[in-house]
Structures are given as structure tokens and as C-alpha cells.
């Protein structure tokens, strides 16, 4: 236990255990079928629990899994057996809240799929190769949502849609504050 805390995977599944977005950082599950088997096992084990108000926790195959559900979305963060459970829970909370901010409170499967780019960027900003990058939901969402145009770009190059995107970005920022 002299090592840096590490995350083995982050899973976002739907209410039937199907993938919405997943990201694996360890080699414990080398093939896609191994990954799917793990997701199925995690989903079955946690399905009946009530993880809607507080994050719940379980052990599976020598891993600690913290999880939280909202609507038809199931959020999971997996770490090693000896990992500090509260660190895992912090990562989960960061992911969960950031997704909430990015989807503007409409956190369900449909909304998540429609904004899958945001979800994937969000995963990318939380953990890099198993190492925790950021756990503050506001910072994570802020980084993901900064869809503005490169400041160096001349205004004339901006299309109407880009201008709209910039406007939307400003709106998002003000909402997030």
C-alpha cells in the first residue's frame, strides 16, 4: 500500500446493465467479453440495492466497487481490494455530480446518450490511466463544457453555428456558477 490510489474502471450502465459509457484503466479484464462479464456481475450484484440517496458499496472478485443510481443510470467506480473506500467514493461523487451538471439535471439514459461526447470527455477529465486527475465536479464540468472557439481564431472564420456554440457556452458557464 505504498502506491498512489488507483482506479480500475468507471462504468456507466443503464437499468438493464447495458453499457452507456465505460472506461477501463487496468488490465484485469483483458478482453471485451471479460469486461462484459464483469459488468454483468456488478450489475446483478447491485441491482436490487437502493443506491439512490447515498453511494453504496460492495466487494466483488477482490475489488471494491462504489456505486450510485439515478433514474435509469447506474454509476460505478471500481478499485483494488486495499483501496481507500472513501477515495473511490470521492471519485464516484465527482463523476456523478459532473454528469448532473453537464446534463443540466436531466440525468437519464436518453439524455446521456444524446450528450455522449460530454460524458466521454468527463471520464477523460476525471481519471488518466488509473490516476485520479480531478474530483471536484464543478472543475470537471467546467473543463468539459468550455466549448469556445480558439481565442487565436479570427472572428471572420467563425461560422454561424460556431457563434451559436460560443453563445451556448457562455450560457452554460453562467448556469454552472
Amino acid at each position: 500500500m505504498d502506491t498512489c490510489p488507483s482506479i480500475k474502471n468507471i462504468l456507466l450502465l443503464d437499468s438493464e446493465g447495458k453499457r452507456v459509457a465505460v472506461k477501463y484503466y487496468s488490465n484485469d479484464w483483458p478482453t471485451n467479453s471479460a469486461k462484459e462479464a464483469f459488468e454483468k456481475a456488478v450489475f446483478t450484484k447491485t441491482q436490487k440495492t437502493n443506491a439512490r440517496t447515498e453511494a453504496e458499496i460492495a466487494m466483488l472478485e477482490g475489488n471494491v466497487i462504489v456505486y450510485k443510481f439515478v433514474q435509469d443510470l447506474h454509476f460505478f467506480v471500481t478499485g483494488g481490494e486495499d483501496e481507500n473506500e472513501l477515495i473511490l467514493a470521492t471519485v464516484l461523487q465527482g463523476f456523478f455530480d459532473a454528469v448532473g451538471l453537464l446534463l443540466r439535471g436531466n440525468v437519464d439514459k436518453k439524455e446521456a446518450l444524446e450528450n455522449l461526447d460530454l460524458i466521454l470527455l468527463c471520464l477523460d477529465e476525471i481519471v488518466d490511466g488509473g490516476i485520479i486527475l480531478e474530483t471536484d465536479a464543478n472543475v470537471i464540468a467546467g473543463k468539459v463544457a468550455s466549448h469556445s472557439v480558439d481565442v487565436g481564431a479570427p472572428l471572420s472564420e467563425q461560422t454561424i453555428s460556431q457563434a451559436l456554440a460560443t453563445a451556448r457556452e457562455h450560457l452554460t458557464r453562467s448556469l454552472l456558477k
Partner: protein
Amino acid sequence: MAQPLVKKDDDRDDEAEYSPFLGIEKGAVLQEARVFNDPQLDPRRCSQVITKLLYLLNQGETFTKIEATEVFFAVTKLFQSRDIGLRRMVYLMIKELSPSADEVIIVTSSLMKDMTSKTDMYRANAIRVLCRITDGTLLTQIERYLKQAIVDKNPVVASAALVSGIHLLETTPEIVKRWSNEVQEAVQSRAALVQFHALALLHQIRQNDRLAVSKLVTSLTRGTVRSPLAQCLLIRYTTQVIREAATTQTGDRPFYDFLESCLRHKAEMVIFEAARAITELNGVTNRELTPAITVLQLFLSSSKPVLRFAAVRTLNKVAMTHPMAVTNCNIDMESLISDQNRSIATLAITTLLKTGNESSVDRLMKQITNFMSDIADEFKIVVVEAIRSLCLKFPLKYRSLMNFLSNILREEGGFEYKKAIVDSIVILIRDIPDAKENGLLHLCEFIEDCEFTYLSTQILHFLGTEGPKTSDPSKYIRYIYNRVHLENATVRAAAVSTLAKFGAMVDALKPRVFVLLRRCLYDGDDEVRDRATLYLNTVGSDGEVIETDKVVKDFLFGSLDIPLANIETSLKNYEPAEQPFDINSVPKEVKTQPLAEKKAPGKKPAGLGAPPSGPPSTVDAYEKLLSSIPEFSDFGKLFKSSAPVELTEAETEYAVNVVKHIFDRHVVFQYNCTNTIPEQLLENVTVIVDASEAEEFAEVASKPLRSLPYDSPGQIFGAFEKPEGVPAVGKFSNMLRFIVKEVDPTTGDVEDDGVEDEYQLEDLEVVAADYVMKVGVSNFRNAWESIGPDFERVDEYGLGPRESLAEAVSAVISLLGMQPCEGTEVVANNSRSHTCLLSGVFIGNVKVLVRLQFGIDGPKEVAMKLAVRSEDDNVSDMIHEIVASG
């Protein structure tokens, strides 16, 4: 939009309609990716296509090499766009595609440009992407930028560089190690996460330098660490320093105050990390534990399941080594039994079972009964195991615990769970005599309705050994005979054997058992009929009430004292012949990993060509070898061959080891010699043995080696006579004598003239342990009782300070050269006492059993109680002598 979520079936249809990825197909998306090549890029559309590609990859779809290359090249075109959102998707896509080395070159310049961009977001992401896909050669080019990035004032950029450094340290450590000045600076950063990442990287760079880690910890524990994550890291590194310091100095534990102060940190993450670190300190004292236990106790009543779980899991571990320290939490633990989260509840119960005292057992069992019905098998097994150890701790409470076990045995459950229960009952019956009859009846009832063949046969076998010894064996017959009617062939055969055992052991039951056995002669299965016939004819005397012959009993029901692996090889080697297979010819020695194999790699210098064929290591091979030498052919049966003992240092000119072969009236030394000098040929090689310190031995024969060429091992034998059946001991000094002839290694020509030379070998000892053969027994308790206390010798020994209990146990086992039974050679972690059971056969075919009880106290002082039972009091004394002199 707001779909009611309960109605899943309706929902599914709607969802399918709404999904933006409905009917998505790889081929079509790859076609769509052509928009990346448009001269007028539409960033929005390109982002969507990338999202689709990422969606496919995320769902487990794979791209062929060609597809991936095409997508990669198309994506690189998108660097032309200045849309930040699109650029970020491009970064993601490149990371997912993990391009090959020649492809990386294509994007390197674009990414390097982004790395020096004014936009922080570009810098941070470009660093992460480039470090992910790059190899060592490219790294030297961008190293300068990375060093700058580490100390960048934007925390996101600094973190990106630091985290990339952590990953790169695994592949190209020599480069990353050059950054330590910048990393050191970043540790002082005001940004919380930069500090965390810098600390992690700095520690990994310096982890092999104890002093540097110690300095780092010392300076940081005094300073301020901003992020809770960094504080957790610091706690981990501190415990590492404590662990390493503890081995060099004693007295007050360094840094304990720091850990204790972390218990008052505002972040729960840090409090918990510190509390756990304290509980895991080596040899933690109760005083040190108390503050940690107190904060964990507070966590037990938290509203957050994660916190409760973390606390109860840690306390559960503490309870294994310091049960008393955890008893204060018992009330909080009891309320956790009804916790919604069953993992927490199970951990709470097993903790309580470890800390509980005798008076609380009954109340606890009542609570557990309610709880058992609604947890999964995996948890139930944990509980059953905890109850078993509790019962062994409080044997007086066996009644309620046994009742509990029998109740859960009747309920539904899978094989592993039932097996855990049955195993527990069997262990309780064995260890608690009072529980025997009660427990056997529970098992009888269980097999009445047991769906697992394995468990039924195990229980029937167990009934056969234990049942006849009870006060009223007849009451078990009904249960056993029912199996003959109702079960599959495997169980029927087991039941027949069990019946026969009752018949043979309990003379009064014999006529009745015979009636039942005769009925089995009409069974549909061969094995069942064969068994019934065998027993009817051997247990015999037509079912009259007379005692069954002891020889027959031993033959039918005695434990097979030959290792199954040995009998298997012997049977395989047996060729059908006039002579029937003789079970006595099967070696009884339990085969251990030959010592020579382990040592060999270190001994032989590399590049010697083909490894020399090692000396024959197994007993059968030794026997064959010795009987082929006429001088030794009349020595009789080989009793035991020792493991090879090295007589030379490693890496010397001549490598010699010796195997001691013990016969009833002789000892044969087999010297395995290897010449490791290519320029030499040895001839007329003999070992001159001086037996002046071994008075009872007289040299009778020796067999020198005519020639010993380079790298081809040869054997020299020396035989000594000794008094019959007596474990004579002595010390022999050895000298290798030979004629050296020069060899030209290139041509292989040997010079005609040789020089006589001698080479001193180390001394060789024959000790009492050489006369003990490793022979296992399957049921130690039965064997112990059947030998009886007539020649029991008990004494206590102080073994002095030892590294650990396990080390002391294995030292005594190897000193005695006996076979550990029932896995007792394994010492549980952190235990303060241990019982080890050994068995063996002494020369003259005298069975010896040893029970060792070890205890360790504070300053690692180990004491041992040695109880020996054998069939000869001389032998019992001899075992004590081995220990006393060793």
C-alpha cells in the same frame, strides 16, 4: 421526456426510439468519417461522427488495422479546425486508436504545436495525448516542454505533465528521473491536485532511495499539504518509513504523532486513511490503537454506507489480532446486523463473533438466525466459518452453535455453503467430544435429503469412523441403510462400506449388518456388489458374533499410510507378470521438491552448455541405482535417502554433494561430483573418509570413479556398517583424492601424465533425523489415540528469540525430518501460538507421532512443548534428543 421508470417494458420501446445511436452500424459510420476530408470543415458534424466512432469502440466494437489507419489519418486532418470542442474529441479519438509508431509521427508536429499553444486546454490535453502514444525517442525531443509544463502556472497543465510522468516512469524511467528538480518545485504548488500528482511522482522516482523518502516525509509532515488526496499519499509513505525504521530501532515509534494528528483532519478520506494505517502498524500497541478505533467507531454510525463499510471492514481485520481493542464497538456493531447493505451486516457479524464473549453467544446467535435467511451464500459461508472458530473458542457453547449449524443445514443453499457447514460440524465433532453424538445425528438427518453426492459420501465415510465408537451405534444403521435404497451408485457403495465398518467394529451388530449386506449383493451396480461381496467374505465368519480379526480390520479400514502419488507411479510402472503387485514395494516417503533442483541454477556458471543431468532424486531411482551395484546388493531394503547435502561452496572447482542412504545395518554415502574446469580431466577419483569421530561405523566398501571429465557428473560411493536397527550418529570428514590430467579444451586432447592431488570437502554428519522417514497419516487424532500414551514423552523447550513463529515452526520440522500432517505446518499470520502435528517412521519400522505446541511472547521469545508418542520408548527419547541437541 420524463418517463416513469418503473414500467420497464414500455420504457424499453420508447428508449429504443429515442436512442441517437439506434441502428448504428460500423460500415456506415466509417463512410460518414469522410466528412473529415471536406475542404470546408463542419466542426459540429465532425464531432458527431467522432462521438459515433467512440460509441462503437465503447460498445466493444473493434476496427481492423486498415480501418483504424484510415480513421486515424482522417482524424489528423481535423487539426486544421480551431474549434476547441472538436479538438478535444480529436484528442480522445487519437488516444482510443492508440496509433502505431509510424503513425504517431504524423500527429507529433500538430500535438507539439498544441503543447506550446497559448490555450491552457490545448497544452494540457496535448501533453496527455502525446505522452500516451509516444515512445522513448520522441520523448527526448519534447522533454524540455514537459519540464516547463510541470512548473506551469496553470494547474491543469502541470497536473497533465505530472500524471504523464507517472505513466512514463514505467517505460522510460531514466528520462523521467531527470525531472526531479521541477517535480520537487511542483510539490510546493499552491494548487491542491498539482501537489498530489507531484508527490506521487516524486515518491515513485525516489522509492528505492530510503533516505530520500524518509527526508521527503519528514519535511512534508511538518509543512502543509493542501489536498486530502495528497495527505492520504503522505500517510501511505509515512507508514512505509515507519515500517522500515522499525526494523532498525526500538522505543518510541517515529511519526506516530503525525498519523494521530491526521485523525483530526477535516476530510473523512484522510481520517480513515490514518486510522487504517495505525491499525496496520507492525506490532501496534493497544495505546496506539485506541484513538484510531475511536474514530472508526464514529464512522460506524454514519449515514453513508461507504463510511460504515470502510470502518467495519477495518475493525474486522483488527479483531483478528486485537479482539479486545474492538469490544468497545460491539453495541454499534450489533445495530449494523440489520444494515441494508448486506456486506456491512456480514462484516459486523463476523467481527462480533470474533470479539464476543461466552455470555453473549446465545443472544448473538438469535440475531444471526434472523439475518441468515436474507443474505447470499457467499456471506453465509463467511458467517459459518466465523461460528466454527467461535465454537472452538467456547466449547461449552457447542450446543447452541451446533443447533444453529444444523438448522441452516436444513435450509436451501448451494454446494459450497453446505460443504462449509458440513466441514464445520465435522471439525466440531472431532475437537469437542461432547458434541459428537449430537453432531452425528444432525449429519445423518442431512444425508436423508442431500442432493450433493460428494457430501453424502464424505459424511458416510465419517460416520463409519466415528459412529461405531458411540454409545449406541445401532441408531445410525437405519440412516445408512436408507442410502442403499434411495441413492445413486456412488453413495450406495459408500453406504455399503460404512455398514461393513459398523459390522467389523461392533460385534453385537454383526449378524444384523450381514443381513443388510447380503441384500446388497443384488444391487444393480458392479462396485456396490463387489464391495458387499468383499466385506461379507473378509469381515466374515458367517455373521456370527465374534471379533473380527485385527489383520482384516487393518486391511479393510486401516488408513493407507502410503502417499497416493507414490502408489500411482508404482502401479503405472508395474508390468503384468507372474509376480503379483506388492504394495510393500511402494516407497512410503513423501516426495518433497528435490533440493538439488532449486539450488542448481545458482550453482552452475552460465554458459556451461547443456545442464548436467542431475543426480537421480526420487527414492525409487535411488533404490534402483543402489541395487545395481553388487557391493551393496545384500544390504536389504533401502530405508531412507536424505536430500543432497552440499559439501563444497558454490562456484568452486569441483562441486560435490552427498546423499545419505540408510539401510538397516549399513549407511551408504553417495557423493555426486561435478568437475567444473574445462582444462582438466580427473581420474581414479576417490573420497577418503575419516570416520574417527563416528565410532559405531566401520567402512566396508567403497566404489571410486575411474574418470571424471568436465561437466559430466559422476558418483562415488562409500559404505559403512553400523549396529543393526540403532540410529548411530557420527561425523565424517571427507577428502577428494584424484589424478589431474591437463586437457586442451579446443581439441579435447588429454595429456598422458597426470598429477596426484587432493581437495578438502566439508564434514558430513549422520544425525538422528536421518533415521526418521516422512510418512503422513490421514487422521492424526485417530493415529495419536491408537498409539496410546504408553511411551509418551513430553517436555518443554525454549527456542530463544526467533524471527517469527512460522520460522521457528519450519526450523523444528526440518530438524526432525518428519511429515507435517493436516496442513499444520502453515502458521496463520500474526498468531501468537501454533500447534503442529508431525508423523514419521523411525528405523526399525517404529511409528512416531509428534505434537508440537509453540508460543511466542513479546520480544519474539519462542517456547515449545514437545509431546512424542511412539511404539518404543527409546524412540520417543531419541526424538527429544534430536530437539535437545539441535
